[in-house]
Every structure is written in structure tokens, then in C-alpha cells.
């Protein structure tokens, strides 16, 4: 009961009063005469003080109004100062639409300690609207510490805004935005946070070799790689033996032909221009050679192919075409006749100890290599994690509980587009691997090209500016309250501003992302804040 009285003392700026509203469409607030719409932003966090509850919401729309329509026909544009000043805020005024999202019950001490809950009521007429203060942001998003990681600051304020990384990693996530909106920097920041707070181990498929080591950005300055920041906590694998020798790479990864399964080849259908009959042919080869089907196919002479087709009923032309195309794949430097699975198994062991792994592709950065290798590695990792979880379920020993794993995937639509999402291991992970403690962090500039079912499974979505209607629709797949979030998304700056929505934040919010600079590197290197509890008490909002 103590809070109500000192609301003004909390240093909030009063904006106006509630004059209209409906639970489904939100509140209409008449702005005070002194308050200009220019000082507000779509998507800004605001607070409505009700009689016994405090509501947290977002500004979703603004509107200029006049009390007499005749003003619109003959505006007093050359009127003296006194006249203009008298008209402003009386006959002309502005309203903002506010969508309440959370509420805090102030009437009971106990309730107060439970933190903000999802909104289930609305304030009455004349409840005052305030700009959110730092204290309000702390109430909603918590203080920095533990797995509560500052991802940036709420526009337009300069205070840290936190994301619950423990919740972030427990479901698959998406980072979206047009190119140039800072996706890869944001990914670096999030990965750094996950590594520093030990929220999860990371497996990063680094198609363009940009995460591990220092890299020059488009505007010419150098940014640190994760390996440079976190040292041995990061293991760097590379497919490219030459690059590995040049760079400070830990292990060169090789893939055996025996590890390639028919499904892997099917994923390459686009890249290799494979015929639809390929699946059947590969199946017949599998019947004959088992796991060694690919080696079997590649080593066949022309006579062998004819004989195989005769006995198995495969189409000779299709078989020859498949052989020819896969020989192209065979020439890749990282492919060996036979490679032990132990290299990938060691990877999983390291991940199990909480280390993070970056797999660089070096000069093998074509989509074909990326798809093939990422799929093979992830399939094995998934299998091992599945075993781990099953063992944990048997023993129920805390020591056996597998550490959460986040797989970072760039150009995610190559694995998760509607045609292949059902075949790739990534589709499976996105849909069901939460229960095996493996989740995805997908990074893409075209969310519309990702399978809708996968999109709907993404727990937290972080999106920079998107302009294509289809992409915007895709980001909001399976989310409520889209209409006003759309306007927030459309009002983002082109750089470094993102809309956070979903599982890891109690309410959607627009954020100016942190800078990935010296100060950030230093913050990531300091120890000590990794343990400890998040800065809030147990809140109902997290148990919804």
C-alpha cells in the first residue's frame, strides 16, 4: 500500500489521463496540453497508475484531434502567439493509444512481491499515464545479474534492459532483420551473454568465418572475435585445413563418406540440381551397401552401375547422374573415404563441459558445404544429446543432466524452408528438441522463407527492421497483438534497434542494442557476476 502515494516521487513524467478504452483494443489517453507527440515514440513503455493496480503498456498509436471540425477548414496559421497558445491543448489536442500488457497489484504486499502479471483488467477513467522510469523497467525486466543479461537500452532511455538468458536458451529463437540491421553483432552479443552467464553451451555454424577471430567490419574498424574475448572457453573447428594452419584453429574437422546419409543428399537437391528420383535410387543403394552406400556408388564402374540397375531395378540414367553429381561433392577437401565419428563425439564432450564451439567453413563457404556439414554434425550431436537425456531420465542424477545446448544457424532458411524443414535435423530440433535440451538460434533476413510451423515454435524473436509484408507477417506467426507490434516494428531505425518479443521478455519492447565495443569486451571479461540470482522475485509472468 505504500507505493501508491509516492508515484510522483518516482520521478516519472506525467503524459496524460485515460479517457476511453476497451480491454480488447486498448486505452485512449488524452495527452496533457504541455506534452507533445513529438516527445513520444511508438512502442515506448508507459505506465498507467490505476486506483489499486499499476499497468505497464506500450504506445501503439497516436492521433491529433480537434474539438471543432471548423478549425480544420480554417487553421489559424498566421494567428498571433496568444491565440495559438490558447488553442493548443484545448481545441486542438492529441491522444495516444496504449496497449496494457502487464499489471502489478499494489493493494497487497504479497502480490507486490510476485511481480508483474499478465494484464487481466484495465484502469478506469482519469487514471494517469506516465513515461516509464528506470524503476519501472527494473520492475518489468529485472536488474542485470545472474542470467539476466543487458542486451541494450530501451529507446529512448539510457538504462540497461535485460533479457532472461536462461529462458532465452530453453526454447528455439530467431534473430531477424534486413541486411545491415546488425543481426550478426546482435548474435555476437547474445552469444557472449550466453557464454559469460553459462546459460548454455553453444555450437555455432560459422558459414562466413566471422565469429571466432577479429574481423573488419563494413565501415572499416575491427571488432573482436569470441575466441579473443573468451579464450579457451571457445573451441574453434575448421573444415579448411589450410586456413586452420594460418589461423589459431584448434581442430580441423573431416567428414567421412560413410557419414553421409541419403537424407543429407536429398537436402542438396537444389544445390546439385538432383532429379526427384534420387531418393529412390539412394534408397536402393542403401539396401545393397548399407551405410557405405555413397562409397559404393562412387566406386562403381560403368559395368557395375549397369549390373546394379539390372538387379535392383534402379533407373540407370538416374543412377549415373547421381554418381556424376556426387563425385563433384567427393572432391571437397574435408571429405575423406572414412572418418571416425570420434571428432564429432569429442565436440559433444566439450559442449557437455560447457565449452562453446565455433565451426568455421573457411574456403568451403558455399551453401552446399554448409548444408551438408551442418546437417551431419548436428545429426550426430542430437543423437548423443538424446542418449544423454535418456541416461539422465534413468539415473535422475543431477550430474547427468545434460547442459543446455544452443545451435546457432545462419542463413537458416536453407535448412528450415517449407520444402526441407521436415527432412533436416534442424526442423526436428526446432519442433521437438526442447525436451532434449537442444535449441536453435536461427539468424535470417527472410523470415517468410522459414517454415511456418518452425516459426511458430520460436520462443523468443528479436527482429530488426523488416519492410517486406510477408516477412513481417512471418515474424508475428503465432503471436497475439500483432497489429500494434507491427507499427512498433515499422518504426525501428535501420541500425541497432530491435523489437524483442516472446518467451525471454515479459512484454514486447523496442531496444537500442548494446554496442559491441571495447567496453563490452571488458564487461565480458570481468568475472564475478556470473553467479547470483536475477534481480527480482519469483514472478507469475514467468509461469504463464
Amino acid at each position, binding site marked *: 500500500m505504500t507505493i501508491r502515494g509516492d508515484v510522483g516521487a518516482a520521478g516519472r513524467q506525467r503524459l496524460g489521463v485515460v479517457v476511453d478504452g476497451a480491454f480488447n483494443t486498448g486505452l485512449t489517453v488524452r495527452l496533457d*496540453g504541455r506534452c507533445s507527440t513529438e516527445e513520444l515514440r511508438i512502442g515506448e513503455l508507459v505506465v498507467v497508475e490505476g486506483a489499486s493496480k499499476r499497468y505497464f503498456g506500450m504506445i501503439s498509436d497516436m492521433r491529433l484531434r480537434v*474539438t*471543432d471540425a*471548423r*478549425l480544420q477548414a480554417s487553421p*489559424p496559421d498566421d*494567428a*498571433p502567439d*496568444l*491565440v495559438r*497558445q*490558447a*488553442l493548443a*491543448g*484545448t*481545441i486542438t489536442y492529441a491522444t495516444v493509444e496504449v496497449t496494457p500488457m502487464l499489471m502489478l497489484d499494489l493493494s497487497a504486499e504479497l502480490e507486490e512481491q510476485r511481480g508483474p502479471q499478465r494484464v487481466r483488467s484495465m484502469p478506469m477513467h482519469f487514471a494517469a499515464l506516465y513515461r516509464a522510469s528506470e524503476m519501472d523497467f527494473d520492475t518489468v525486466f529485472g536488474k542485470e545479474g545472474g542470467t539476466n543479461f543487458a542486451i541494450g537500452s530501451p529507446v529512448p532511455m539510457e538504462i540497461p534492459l535485460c533479457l532472461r538468458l536462461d529462458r532465452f536458451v530453453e526454447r528455439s529463437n530467431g534473430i531477424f532483420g534486413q541486411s545491415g540491421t546488425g543481426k550478426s553483432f546482435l548474435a555476437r552479443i547474445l552469444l557472449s551473454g550466453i557464454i559469460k552467464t553459462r546459460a548454455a553451451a553453444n555450437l555455432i555454424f560459422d558459414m562466413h568465418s566471422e565469429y571466432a577471430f577479429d574481423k573488419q567490419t563494413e565501415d572499416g574498424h575491427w571488432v573482436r572475435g569470441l575466441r579473443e574475448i573468451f579464450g579457451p572457453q571457445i573451441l574453434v573447428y575448421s573444415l579448411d585445413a589450410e586456413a586452420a594452419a594460418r589461423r589459431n584453429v584448434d581442430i580441423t574437422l573431416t567428414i567421412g563418406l560413410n557419414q553421409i546419409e541419403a537424407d543429407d543428399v536429398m537436402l542438396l537437391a537444389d544445390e546439385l540440381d538432383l532429379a526427384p528420383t534420387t531418393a529412390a535410387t539412394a534408397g536402393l543403394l542403401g539396401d545393397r551397401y548399407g551405410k557405405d552406400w555413397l562409397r559404393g556408388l562412387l566406386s562403381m564402374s560403368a559395368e557395375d552401375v549397369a549390373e546394379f540397375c539390372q538387379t535392383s531395378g534402379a533407373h540407370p540414367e538416374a543412377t549415373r547422374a547421381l554418381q556424376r553429381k556426387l563425385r563433384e561433392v567427393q572432391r571437397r577437401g574435408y571429405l575423406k573415404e572414412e572418418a571416425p565419428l570420434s571428432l564429432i563425439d569429442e565436440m559433444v564432450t566439450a559442449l557437455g563441459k560447457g565449452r562453446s564451439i565455433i565451426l568455421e567453413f573457411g574456403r568451403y563457404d558455399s551453401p552446399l558445404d554448409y548444408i551438408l556439414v551442418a546437417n551431419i554434425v548436428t545429426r550426430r550431436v542430437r543423437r548423443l544429446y538424446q542418449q544423454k537425456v535418456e541416461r539422465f531420465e534413468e539415473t535422475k542424477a543431477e550430474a547427468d543432466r545434460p547442459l543446455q545446448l544452443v545451435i546457432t544457424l545462419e542463413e537458416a532458411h536453407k535448412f528450415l524452408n517449407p520444402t526441407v524443414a521436415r527432412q533436416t535435423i534442424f526442423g526436428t530440433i526446432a519442433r521437438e528438441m526442447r525436451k532434449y535440451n537442444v535449441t536453435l538460434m536461427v539468424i535470417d533476413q527472410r523470415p517468410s522463407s522459414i517454415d511456418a510451423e518452425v516459426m511458430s515454435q520460436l520462443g523468443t524473436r528479436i527482429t530488426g527492421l523488416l519492410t517486406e509484408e510477408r516477412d513481417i507477417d512471418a515474424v508475428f506467426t503465432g503471436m497475439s497483438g500483432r497489429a500494434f507490434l507491427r507499427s512498433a516494428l515499422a518504426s525501428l531505425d535501420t541500425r541497432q534497434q530491435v523489437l524483442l518479443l516472446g518467451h525471454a521478455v515479459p512484454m514486447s519492447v523496442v531496444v537500442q542494442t548494446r554496442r559491441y565495443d571495447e567496453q563490452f569486451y571488458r564487461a565480458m571479461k570481468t568475472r564475478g557476476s556470473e553467479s547470483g540470482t536475477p534481480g527480482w522475485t519469483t514472478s507469475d509472468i514467468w509461469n504463464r
Partner: protein
Amino acid sequence: MRIGEIIGSSSTQFVSESLELRSPPALGSLVKVRVGDDRELFGVVCYGETVSLDPGRRAVRRSTEEVYDEGVYRENPQLEHVLRTEFTSLSVGVMEGRTVQQGLPAQPPPLHFAVNSCGPEETARFTEGLFYFRVLLAASSPVPPEQVLASHARQVYRARGDDELWLRRAATEVARLLREDYERLITALYAMEQAR
């Protein structure tokens, strides 16, 4: 200063005869009637006219080539006895001691009581609150209420020593009250602007 005597009184307004012919108080000026020991009723002048004592008798031309304007009165001293000047004031509130109550008074002021002009200090005190603007705007008078109000604002602005802040406050209040009628509002605001 005594300026008139009440010759007609009602709940909303009172009519007074000016002590001096041809010089009624300014339109919109604040006047007061002492109705008790410590009780004064305030009004805003909304109308003034000079008419013949005999209602049936119209004035006729008296000027010549040489005699006109003030000269007419010098040449015709009897006019002082057949003409009278009247002014009407809208009741807007009561002051008891230092307490101001804006709005219509409980009783109309008594007939034949004296009407006085207000000094700057009383004017400032009475006009601190602006609720009486509502009373002014709702009144029926031969002069459109917004014109009376604008004239009143000009008078008060001067009386308060060119109080810019008060004038802005008054303009905003007028805008709030006339928000549904843009034409009347603009008329009032432009008229108030003339004060400066």
C-alpha cells in the same frame, strides 16, 4: 468610487443609472455593490446606453454649423435633466472578507444601492480564479458574451499591471470553454489579443 445606483435588479444581472451622464463604466469592467458589512457583490459591465428620461420621447438633432459635439450640451443645459445614462452588469460572484465565491449570488443586489468601481487590488483578488468566465459566457446580454468577456479580459489585464501570465491563462480558459464553437472562440481570442 461610487459610479451609479441600482434601478433594476435580478438574479443574473442588475441595471444601474450612472451618476454622471454619458460616462458609464467601460464595457467589461468590474464593479461592486456593498450588500452587507463585509459582503460585496461583483458584476461585469455588459451593456450601457444613454436614453431619454421619458421613454416615449426620442432625441432630436440639436447641432448647427457652429455648434456640435460638446458644444451642443453647453448650449442646451436642460439636456442634463431630460437624459440619463444606464449600464447593465452581470453578477459574477461575491467576496466576503478575503474569500472569493465566483458564480451567481444567492440574492439579487437591493435596488437603489450604490454601484462602485473596483480598484486594482480588488480586481486582482477577484480575478485570480477564472470560474466566473462560465457565468459570463452563459449570460444573455445585448452584446455577445464573448465580446463582453474579451473586453473584460482587456480591462483586467490593464488593472493587473499588464499581467501577461493572467492573459494567457484567461485565453486558455476561454479556449477550453468555447472548444465546441471555433468561430466564437476565435472572435474572443483575437479581441483579447488587442489588449497587448
